[in-house]
């Protein structure tokens, strides 16, 4: 904050008026250039950036969930089941495939759309058995799909795009559109689970973290 209290500023304004009067018409130009800059950066930010951010990978082979679902008798649980110790089997191992298929020699390196980072402890048991949540709520209608989507991986974080969601703006229409912590928290809030955290008044961190 300056406090020079001498007449100088006045003179300066007078001098300064001449150039500005010349550049007066420049006002329109300035606005134009401003808008150009705005437009360009918008295109980069909304259009190009998301394309660059994610790399696409295709699954080892195209798996038909619909077909399999018709064959098995225990719906999703036939292949994605809870083990006796309460842990979740996740994507099927070779051992399960060869119950029906002929012997293959090595495990299939599936790309897991819904893989959460290592810091997350997600209990399928708690959700399926405890809260009676169905698979679709988080995984969408994968079960009825006839082929596998291409897998998109964030180049910086290595996360599957399903975590952030496919809308770069982070807008979600369905419960399964996004799998960030806030989405878990929101659902927990709605389902009125214990407000056991001193800090957040929601579920304690350790409920879902390890």
């Amino acid at each position: 904050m300056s406090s020079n209290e001498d007449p100088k500023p006045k003179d300066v304004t007078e001098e300064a008026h001449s150039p500005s009067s010349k550049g007066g018409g420049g006002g329109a130009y300035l606005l134009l250039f401003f808008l150009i800059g705005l437009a360009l950066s918008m295109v980069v930010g909304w259009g190009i950036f998301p394309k660059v951010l994610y790399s696409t990978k295709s699954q080892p082979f195209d798996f038909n969930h619909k077909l399999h679902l018709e064959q098995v008798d225990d719906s999703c649980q036939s292949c994605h089941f809870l083990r006796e110790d309460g842990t979740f089997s996740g994507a099927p191992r070779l051992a399960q495939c060869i119950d029906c298929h002929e012997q293959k020699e090595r495990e299939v390196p599936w790309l897991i759309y819904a893989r959460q980072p290592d810091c997350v402890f997600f209990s399928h048991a708690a959700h399926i058995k405890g809260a009676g949540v169905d698979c679709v709520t988080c995984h969408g209608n994968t079960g009825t799909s006839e082929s596998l989507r291409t897998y998109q991986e964030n180049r910086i974080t290595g996360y599957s795009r399903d975590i952030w969601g496919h809308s770069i703006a982070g807008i979600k229409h369905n419960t399964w559109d996004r799998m960030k912590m806030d989405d878990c928290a929101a659902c927990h809030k709605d389902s009125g689970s214990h407000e056991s955290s001193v800090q957040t008044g929601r579920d304690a961190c350790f409920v879902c973290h390890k």
Partner: protein
Amino acid sequence: MKQAQTKHQPKRYGMVIDLDKCTGCGACMVACFSENNVPFKEDETDKRLSITWMKVYKVTNGKKFPDTEVCYFPRPCQHCAGQHEGHSPCVSVCPATATDYGMETGIVSQIYTRCFGCRYCMGACPYHARYFNWWDPVWPKGMERYLSPNVSPRMRGIVEKCSFCYHRYQLARNKAYTEGRRTLKESEYQTACTQACPANAITFGDLNNPDHAVHQMAQPDLHHHYKPKNPHAFRLLERLGTNTKIYYVSSREWVRKAGDNYQVPLTTDSHGPENSGH
């Protein structure tokens, strides 16, 4: 209080450590290391740079030979509740909510991915139970194969500490859910150190549950911040009002004094602890 809102009596997991039985063998430390993916360095002799969630202190009575006596203090995170439930020294100060107090279990959590390494919690902890990852954790080639998937390895630049093997609680609950249960048996959730202790010096369980051994051994006084009623039991630095969940038992007075200094006689109406919270 928040417990009121929860549908059932919350748990208060805690530990009773019998210092008469503890032999200072350190099995609890290594059980903890291997259970929780604790890293190690080439030189661990600077103990102020050595991550030991469970640390065994050697304490002497300061007398000369041959009257010297030694006692060992195993020190996990004390999981302080503070003067009003959840006001732990560390939880209250963490600026980013990276450490939290679970009302359901009384366990102080540390979320490594949330922590950004300001170390305020370490300054707040009188027990030095919190450790900072000054280095990247590195396992000799091949050794990373023994790492447990139940505990997330920590990255450089964040604080970590004893979690009461919380993942074991998570896994036990998983099993309970699949068997259609909501409650756990005392034996279903035990920490790695408790399980390993060759001397059976460590007991773990729910201090709120009269059927649990810890409750019977420590006899916590619910009306006085869970102070032990068992005359041989005490808590580290009781007078700070940290209201910890680790109770120590010893028949030797000098040991009890070493654990909590009785510089001012401790009386139930002492305003000391009250001062310590707000």
